[in-house]
């Protein structure tokens, strides 16, 4: 994990419309046409991203929740984060203090 990723903080885009039910989340970015469907671990990550979080934060919380080693899940969480960013659901918080 590069230094940029370690310190960068991520959050949900503010303009999203979303619905949560039965442990799943549907999200629509009004600038796109597709509704994204999140389930399982993705929902946990998604809910954590309601407030800005770094990747190590996410990995640490998930490793505690799922009783897994951070090293085992780190790559998966990073891939998920990349995917959410690629789908225009998550953005990096630009914060001059960091």
């Amino acid at each position: 994990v590069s230094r940029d990723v370690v310190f960068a903080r991520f959050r949900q885009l503010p303009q999203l419309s979303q619905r949560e039910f039965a442990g799943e989340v549907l999200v629509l970015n009004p600038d796109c046409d597709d509704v994204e469907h999140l389930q399982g671990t993705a929902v946990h990550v998604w809910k954590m991203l309601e407030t800005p979080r770094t990747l190590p934060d996410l990995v640490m919380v998930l490793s505690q929740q799922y009783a897994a080693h951070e090293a085992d899940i780190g790559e998966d969480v990073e891939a998920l984060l990349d995917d959410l960013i690629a789908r225009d659901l998550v953005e990096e918080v630009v914060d001059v203090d960091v």
Partner: protein
Amino acid sequence: MTSSPGTSSKRWSTLTSDGSAVLAARRIAGFGLGSSKSFTAPATDDQWPQLVRRIRSQKLCGLAAAAVESGSLQITNEQFAELLEIQRWMMVHALHVEKKLYEIGRALNEARIDFVVLKGPAFANSLYSNPAWRPFSDLDLMVSTANWRGACSVLAAEGYTRVIPEPHKGFDERFGKAAAHRAENGFEIDLHRTLVLGPFGLWLDPNELLEHTASVRIGGRQFRRLDDTASLINACLHAALGARPPFLLALRDVLQIANSEDVDWALLADWSKRWRLGAALRYAFETASQQLEVELPREAFAIVGSKARRTEVRALESYTTERRSRGGMPLATLKAIPGLRAKATYVAYLVIPDKEFLKARSSGKSSYLGRWKVPVNWALTRRAGRTRSIRSEAGRELHNEIGRRELSDMITRMSRGSSSDSAEGAHSVIENWTNRSASFWRCACESTSLGEVIVKTDSAWARPDPRIVHNRTLRLESLLAEQGVMEVGVPRVLGWQSDPPAILMEHITGTNLSKLVRSAAPDDTDLMDRLLQIISSCGRALGALHRHGQVEDSAEMLAAARMDIHRLVRRLMISRGKLYPLETLTLAESYGDFALYNFIASPEGRLYLIDPPLQRTVSLVHKDVAQFLTEVRASLGASAIGRSNDMDRRLGQLREAFFEGYIQIGPVDLRTPENAWLVTLYETHRVLAKVAKGIRRRKYRRAMDYARACQGLRLTLTRMPTSGNARTELSQ
């Protein structure tokens, strides 16, 4: 977001029986609002489809999913998966509606037009604890009357076309409620100027309402919505006046908002009084509380307990009773419009609307005559309704007598006579209705052995008749089974009582066959194929009844039948020379009322025959056949097929299907010229009698249905082959 009141107090363990698809839906609609009613019966495979249909049509999937998650509603994993699939679909749609809101909101803001978001998106995102509980499918926006034209222009610039044009320039601002605007992809926006059509919409002051707004965050953007008090007015008017019967989700909105802490009840009472909304608010609160079995907040008691003015009650009735389909709303609107000049303008706009409006309202055919027929039909049906209500007085007395007693006790008592089922326990009346002499209550039983039941009483019954109905029903059931007509059944009679006379029956979910035929359209080949099968089964059923009840030659009865035929021939002015020799007449026990309206087609494809005859009468088998075919003619005449050129062909097909079914079991071959001729003779007589009766009773529409259906009947009779040829055929 405000919190949902009392989210933990409502619990029920499992779904009840079919009946309770209705009850279950109501309880789902009330989920989280603090009722303590519990369910005990399990959901079975045949009950689930009914419930899921209701959940979908009433948009209750979000609440149902939440109820399952909380453990209040127990269904199988497969059923939950089906439920979630519907919920996903509805939520995807809701998210797209919100996307449209961003787009159109931006355009309205740029045009500096203030607007508020009404109903779905506003309620879901501000008044429900979870927006997923409140699906919505369209977008309702409200603007002030001053901004109405500007907002319409913005929508037009954004690619939305008004679905129905204004009846006349200026109508919208003076008398209109809203206009639907549709995009090319079919998405619709309802642009409102006031909350509701008709008198209540005219009485309330939309400008004052628009002064009471709050902010709602939808996605990442802020919009204006009506504040909780004004939203409660909106929800109540929508629930009470929007649809008949009210949508469960609309009733849920009423209770959801009524439980908000931010409702200003003093202001609501003031508006209720000043805007004459008392009757509508009371109706909405009472209906919501009753249907969802949820108590109202104490603050609502003052409104529910207040006495509404006569004008309000009359206005409400124009929405909530059958007057709605008889022009009740325009008439009530006319009364609510102040000033003679304005009333005259309203009438003129509606009677002589612009051509464009006329064209849009009548599917492309612009005809003033067609439009003027509408109020004439309203007037005629209103008059016929009055006649009917006088005739049903005896039935109503009996209805009241039973209504005064505890229905639950009656059901329990009656069901004790049934060997296999018990209906002990609580019962809820789902609906009740009356016809000329009979009254019906459809009730859900919370017992495990009975689902939904019907209690029927009939003022025409003498004291011992309920027992006879019971026995006749059992006999009919075994007779059909004996003759191998397995596709036709009889609703079980579960019990009866003599005083007051009533029977308890199994409730059959399905469509009345008469209604099914009426819904047929010329291009609906699937339905026609299904109808051909159904009518053939009806033929088999009647054939079986006649085969079983066939009467051996009785000289007296045959002579009476011949005299009857000769009498008809004279009345219909058919020459004696064309008569067949009436030597092979077949007599059987008659069903009497063997007609489409006494059949129910269940969704599973089974037919149920109801109302068995109480008295044993013997007549020509052709009479029963003619009775059935006459009703087929009338129902088809009332359908879209009846107004098309396809009537003769379709009727011929149905007739042929019936004959085919009948001759499989029945005692006579209806296709022989003599039998076909006799059937036609009785059909002609029956159709003409029905037309005359319709005219006499001023049921002109019904008379027209029969008249339309009798085309070609006399023609068939008079064109029968000469008796010489027929005699030859028969003698062979």
